[in-house]
């Protein structure tokens, strides 16, 4: 264990973070006047520190049974690099941050952060409209050479990453709230792997950390810190996205919001932001302009889909781009139920509409 002296500081920090209830505050205590390697040795030899005796006891037991070298190799095997604030490659945008992370675990390559960055964020419980907009904006931004950031959550986040990947140009970066070996939510497993392969997945939590509730607000501050512009696609009045917006405001980052119907609960937060003076994001071009770049892409136009059947067009028109239920469709179209049903079946088949539970939503037909 004593040839471990050759290990870099990052390895010792990773080991320290594996100890019980080790957070930023305890880390500061432990590292006071010591290098990470010295701190580890101090814990093993039970040097007095400003922590409770029981905690030191627990740390000592754990530290004596931990093979730091093996842990370091485990990170390397997973393709995970560890960045300390002083490491080469630590994101420049986080230097001088009011609450910078002490350490970042990175799966993939953070090189994309040298590009202009835009965080596309929003609610997990989004509508098809939000999901479509997040996808299209991200696709167009990435195609312009802008790095799209998001949080790999369900809903808007997932659509943003999928869109950025679809452009196949600027790599996406995800900031997550769990250890990099604890993929969460599980439904995004494939997306997580693609983002890590194309760009990077970043976390400030060590391997094995569960996605705890309080990790996500902390994750949001890193997301806000890494972004040049934060775009909220859909959000309720409260929620994680509004927290990210607050973090962005304290860091003087520009916040933009996508307008939505005033009756849609999922757009309540974004419409509120617009009322407060946020810039509206109605196309990827708006965002590019906000970055001070010249938009080289065409602004997204809803692709005109050729609808062969007149009755299908009537059904699509009756959606008014909102989520509607069957009864409303019957009333709005005034069609015979049989004709309407056939129309809905074939529109679902061609993915011009999607059905979630009892709700129908119109799509821009991206999949």
């Amino acid at each position, binding site marked *: 264990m004593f040839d471990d002296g050759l290990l870099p500081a990052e390895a010792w920090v990773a080991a320290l973070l594996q100890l019980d209830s080790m957070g930023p505050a305890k880390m500061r205590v432990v590292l006071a006047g010591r290098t990470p390697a010295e701190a580890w040795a101090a814990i093993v030899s039970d040097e007095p520190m400003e922590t409770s005796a029981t905690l030191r006891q627990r740390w000592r037991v754990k530290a004596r049974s931990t093979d730091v070298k093996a842990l370091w190799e485990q990170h390397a095997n997973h393709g995970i690099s560890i960045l300390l604030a002083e490491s080469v490659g630590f994101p420049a945008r986080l230097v001088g941050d009011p609450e910078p992370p002490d350490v970042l675990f990175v799966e993939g390559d953070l090189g994309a952060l040298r590009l202009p960055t835009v965080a596309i964020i929003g609610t997990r419980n989004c509508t098809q409209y939000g999901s479509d907009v997040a996808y299209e904006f991200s696709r167009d931004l990435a195609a312009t050479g802008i790095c799209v950031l998001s949080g790999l959550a369900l809903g808007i986040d997932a659509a943003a990453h999928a869109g950025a990947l679809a452009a196949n140009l600027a790599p996406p970066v995800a900031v997550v709230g769990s250890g990099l070996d604890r993929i969460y939510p599980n439904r995004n497993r494939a997306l997580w792997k693609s983002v890590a392969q194309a760009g990077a997945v970043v976390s400030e939590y060590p391997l094995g950390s569960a996605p705890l509730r309080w990790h996500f607000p902390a994750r949001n501050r890193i997301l806000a810190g890494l972004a040049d512009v934060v775009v909220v696609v859909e959000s309720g009045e409260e929620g994680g996205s509004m927290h990210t917006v607050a973090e962005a405001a304290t860091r003087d980052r520009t916040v933009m919001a996508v307008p939505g119907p005033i009756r849609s609960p999922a757009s309540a937060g974004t419409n509120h932001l617009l009322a407060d003076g946020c810039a509206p994001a109605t196309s990827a071009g708006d965002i590019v302009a906000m970055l001070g770049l010249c938009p080289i892409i065409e602004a997204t136009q809803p692709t005109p889909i050729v609808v062969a059947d007149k009755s299908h067009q009537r059904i699509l028109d009756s959606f008014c781009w909102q989520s509607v239920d069957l009864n409303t469709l019957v009333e709005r179209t005034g069609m015979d139920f049989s004709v309407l049903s056939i129309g809905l079946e074939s529109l679902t088949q061609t993915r011009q509409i999607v059905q979630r*539970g009892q709700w129908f939503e119109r799509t821009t037909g991206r999949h």
Partner: protein
Amino acid sequence: MLARISAATLVGVVGHPVAVEVHVSNGLPGFTVVGLPDVSCREARDRVRAAVLSSGLAWPLRRVTVNLAPSGVRKEGAGLDLAIAIGVLVAEGDIDARSVENMGFVGELGLDGTIRPVPGALPLADAVHTPDVVVPYANVAEASLIQDRTIRSVSNLRDLVDVLKGEGEWSPIPEAVEEPVLVAEPDLADVRGQHVARHALEIAAAGGHHLLFIGPPGAGKTMLAKRLSGLLPSLDVKTAIEVTRIHSAAGLGLPVGGLIARPPFRAPHHGASAVALIGGGSSVLRPGEVSAAHGGVLFLDEMGEFSPAVLDGLRQPLEEGSVRVSRASGSAEFPARFLLVAATNPCPCGDLGRPGGCFCSSASRFRYARRLSGPLLDRLDLRVHVQRPSGQDLFGGRCGESSAEVADRVGRVRNKAIGRGVRCNAELSARQLDETEPLCADSVAMLEVAISAGRLSARGMHRVRCVARTIADLEGVDIVTPGHLAQALQLRADPVAVNREVDHVR
């Protein structure tokens, strides 16, 4: 010295003949009842003695032994009181044994000698194998439904003894009501808007398809469900008697004419126990709500709030149309063929799992969804979303069709189903469907897409075809078109698709 009187006791909803044997002998005065009586039956001793004395008759100051044969069947309730009293009087010689030879007795006695009504008078009177049966006056109407018995009644024990001695007259039996009196049922015309739900209600009634309403509180799910029994045709005579037996045995109220001619509507509260819903009990086997709904509608409001074990118990009756309850004390089979209508919120907040609108945590939505999934959901052929009606619908909208108009169509479809050899279209087998209406290419394509998209299982496809058959029948069309299938598919949306998106932050 010895008397033998015909009577009956209930096991489940079926009457069993009982011979009440009374033996009066010299010895210390006493009164014992043997032959597996339950508590209320054993208490007959005190009631019978008081009733006899109150009627101005003499109680033997000798040893009285009553045997209820066959002794293997548990006797429950007070329905044997009257037979025991008559037995004692016959054994004492107060009444000539020949006058009761061809007569059975059903009834409970009050301490003053009045003859009180008993639950299950119909199956009880049916089980007594004598040409004449004496029943309490309040039970005459239901007992009269038995064709080959002469039903007799008097109001109290004193009068009965007088009649049996040839000194009095039977109470006049009211004329059997020919046309059952129809109690006004809620009318479908009261429902404003709700096109899809009305359509589904009509299909459910016509084809016997089980139905699920999904919607927030106050949307009118209960209102709609209550109108379903009004759309169903009146019960045929055989079912009507069967239903009346069950209601009689369960001690539920019967209409004036005695016969339940209209399909019953039962709506148990979601706190109901498995025994209350399915039937059973530890000593006495009673029919549950599923049997009370036999021939009619069982409405489960807030289905998500029923305990999962209770809902699981519905599978056998849904499958077989009857419930077999077995206990240590015996077993009983209750008929239970009903139309199930369930109503539920889509999630705890009731905001319909609306995209972007529901604020329930995904974990709580998942818990809700789990209760509504699986084999039970698979049996609900129609799943319909019910929204709160808009003010426009409530005040400006025109009234829809009345129940009578819809019931007319429903009756025609039901007759067509009977012509196919089934009670209703929901019972059509896959082979019958293939024979009567082979699928056209367009229909096959539509179903294939639905199956490959994971929207439909093999069983689901069969159910959709049954529903499509009903829709075609309602339109008076012989051939099932893709339009009918598309409607059936639209009315079978997965109610928990949104909820299945599990995502639980700890």
